[in-house]
């Protein structure tokens, strides 16, 4: 048996191949994401665990968790070595030099992310600053005397050396005492990491777990409440567009009078970007839900009218004429021919338009008071917490996709006549549970009676 080629113009792949390719189409992006997140070769950034003060106080301070480009870190480390050198020079000149105890405390506390990452801190430690400082003091001691090593991020020899030097000073004081002798800075060090805009999958999953389950702070709404708010905007605007747009569209498609009256202006109107009306809508409808729904509505309704008018026009005119010769009047044509005739295609149009409505969601939720999922995305995006942003974006995608697919599956139940030829949806090969091809037509032909006509001359047998 010869294998079929993989590339055949306008031919379908076997369902076996199609299934695996479609599964692959979902797995591939995830695999690429994982590769960039977990293979250090692809990492462009360091995620800082140890940070230090800047030589120039005007420059941006880093905190643990910040990401810097890989080629930026050596310069930053060199800068801190410079600060340390000047501290060492000061001590050499005057061993009894006095520094700021406040600065020292800050330098001591720079070990916290390391202690945290290694799990050296208990819940009680995190309860008060005092307990924390004590725990960090212990951590310095343990590291200096080699009782523990940092597994989460191996410390450089340089940093271990600094820890030992600082511990010489610190060990003379009790935990919590103010230390006047200037301490050295730890040299900035970090873990190789993905860029900030591409958090690793596990970070997203854990952030999603927190955001979707935990009780939000500051009276913020739960994620499901945000989702319900967003769904209200999308479906509110969409349903209004459907209620108003569908009848107009059908009228335009049926009667040239309405078509000429409505369609040219609608065509013009749809080129005016809906978001440009946002301030106007806020002025008209206030800052709450109404302008948002209105924005989705005006973003969707022109397309609704034009698409449905076109779908109506595509109905085979012969069907209308056939109905007329059977005695159908204008009302009957509309209710018994045009409407049932276009409904399967209108349903498909509505699925496409629902997708449109979702795209207006983000802009709609930003106008007036920010609400819903978009408010969350916007806030967390501003704080560069993209590990919290990604799950929400993906959730919107999953909701849209599953809605669309279930509506498509529902179409088989609603419009059975459209599916008598084994017409399949694009993703049907993914459905392992129903892969029996239906062949009603062949069955019908087999069951057909022999044609009861007067006998036609039998074709002469080929000699």
């Amino acid at each position: 048996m010869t294998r079929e080629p993989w590339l055949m113009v306008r031919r379908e792949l076997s369902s076996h191949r199609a299934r695996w390719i479609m599964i692959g189409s979902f797995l591939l992006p995830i695999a690429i994401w994982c590769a960039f997140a977990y293979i250090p070769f692809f990492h462009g950034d360091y995620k800082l665990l140890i940070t230090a003060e800047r030589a120039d106080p005007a420059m941006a301070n880093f905190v643990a968790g910040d990401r810097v480009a890989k080629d930026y870190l050596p310069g930053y480390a060199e800068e801190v070595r410079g600060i340390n050198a000047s501290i060492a020079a000061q001590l050499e000149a005057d061993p009894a030099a006095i520094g700021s105890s406040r600065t020292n405390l800050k330098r001591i506390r720079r070990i916290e992310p390391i202690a945290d990452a290694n799990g050296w801190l208990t819940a009680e430690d995190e309860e008060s600053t005092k307990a924390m400082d004590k725990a960090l003091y212990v951590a310095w001691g343990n590291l200096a005397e080699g009782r523990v090593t940092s597994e989460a991020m191996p410390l450089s020899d340089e940093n271990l050396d600094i820890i030992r030097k600082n511990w010489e000073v610190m060990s003379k004081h009790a935990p919590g005492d103010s230390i006047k002798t200037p301490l050295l800075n730890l040299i900035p060090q970090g873990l190789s990491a993905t860029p900030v805009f591409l958090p690793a999958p596990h970070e997203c999953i854990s952030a999603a777990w927190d955001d979707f389950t935990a009780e939000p702070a500051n009276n913020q709404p739960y994620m499901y409440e945000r989702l319900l708010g967003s769904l209200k905007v999308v479906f509110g605007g969409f349903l209004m567009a459907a209620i108003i747009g569908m009848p107009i569209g059908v009228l335009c498609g049926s009667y040239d009078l309405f078509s000429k009256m409505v369609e040219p202006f609608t065509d013009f109107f749809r080129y005016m970007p809906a978001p440009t009306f946002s301030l106007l809508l806020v002025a008209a409808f206030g800052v709450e839900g109404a302008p948002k729904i209105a924005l989705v509505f005006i973003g969707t309704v022109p397309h609704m009218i034009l698409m449905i008018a076109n779908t109506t026009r595509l109905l085979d005119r012969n069907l209308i004429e056939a109905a007329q010769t059977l005695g159908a009047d204008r009302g009957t044509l509309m209710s018994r021919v045009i409407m049932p005739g276009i409904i399967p295609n209108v349903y498909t149009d509505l699925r496409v338009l629902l997708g449109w409505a979702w795209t207006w969601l983000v802009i709609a939720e930003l106008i007036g008071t920010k609400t819903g999922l978009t408010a969350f995305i916007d806030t967390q995006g501003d704080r560069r917490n993209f590990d919290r942003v990604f799950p929400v974006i993906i959730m919107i995608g999953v909701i849209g996709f599953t809605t669309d697919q279930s509506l498509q599956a529902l179409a088989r139940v609603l419009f059975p006549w459209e599916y008598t030829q084994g017409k399949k949806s694009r993703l049907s090969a993914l459905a392992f549970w129903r892969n029996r091809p239906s062949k009603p037509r062949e069955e019908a032909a087999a069951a057909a009676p022999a044609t009861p006509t007067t006998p036609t001359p039998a074709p002469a047998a080929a000699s």
Partner: protein
Amino acid sequence: MTATDLPVVEKPPEIAARFARIDARPVVLQVQHLGRSFVSPTGETIRALGDVSFDVRRREFITVVGPSGCGKSTFIRIVAGLESSTEGQMLLDGKVVTGPGADRGMVFQGYTLFPWLSVKKNVMFGLELAGKGKNAAANEAMLWLEMVGLGQFADHYPSQLSGGMKQRVAIARALAAKPRILLMDEPFGALDANTRCDMQNYLLEIFRNVDVTILFITHDIDEAVYLADRVVVMGRNPGHIMEIVDVPLPRPRENDMLFDKYFLQAKKRIEHLIHPPGEAAAQEKKAPIGRMTVVGDEVY
């Protein structure tokens, strides 16, 4: 060419008697000087159809045959009321009709069954519009489906049927509405030759069993003669009636009649009307544009 040059169609006495009986029947449809002109995009007035007049009598089977572009489709669409005429008028049972109506049922060349309705509900469509109750309509629809031999497909969707079966349902649907005249616009044009032959015999059987008058458009002369009592032969520029040929064949028709002397006479006359014999000879013989074989033989 004058009419005397045309092949003559003999009319045996029993056939002449048959036509006398037909002529005694009441007229169902009167077409009077029907014509249609339209204005082309360039602004000239084009006359597609002009001065078409003839009568259709009760239970008569009339076919209209003519070359493409002779306006026969326009003509039947005007009769059906789907297009308007610009000249003349038509009377159905003595009353002027305009616009489509259930009194003039039509079977189209394309498949016009409603895809969202089952075969039975398609046939019920006209019955329900006529005010019949659901049950009565369903029972009557089943009778018509049995009549065209498709009773067991009542619950199938049209998309599950073959082309010939679809046209049989379309005929059943049109007949169920009890039209005064059944209009058929090349109904078998899209079918293959074998199915077409079967369908012609089906139609003849239906015509024998059902009290119906049929006006049938075709471009196939065999079909026109085989089915009809009279053949209306149309010509072009503008579409007009060249002659109405009485078919000298008895009913019921049988396939063997395709080789009957009278059949061939009628066919030849129509053929000569549509394609005058001198015309083809007058065309200049042209050499093929290029050689497509490398064989040394002279192929032309």
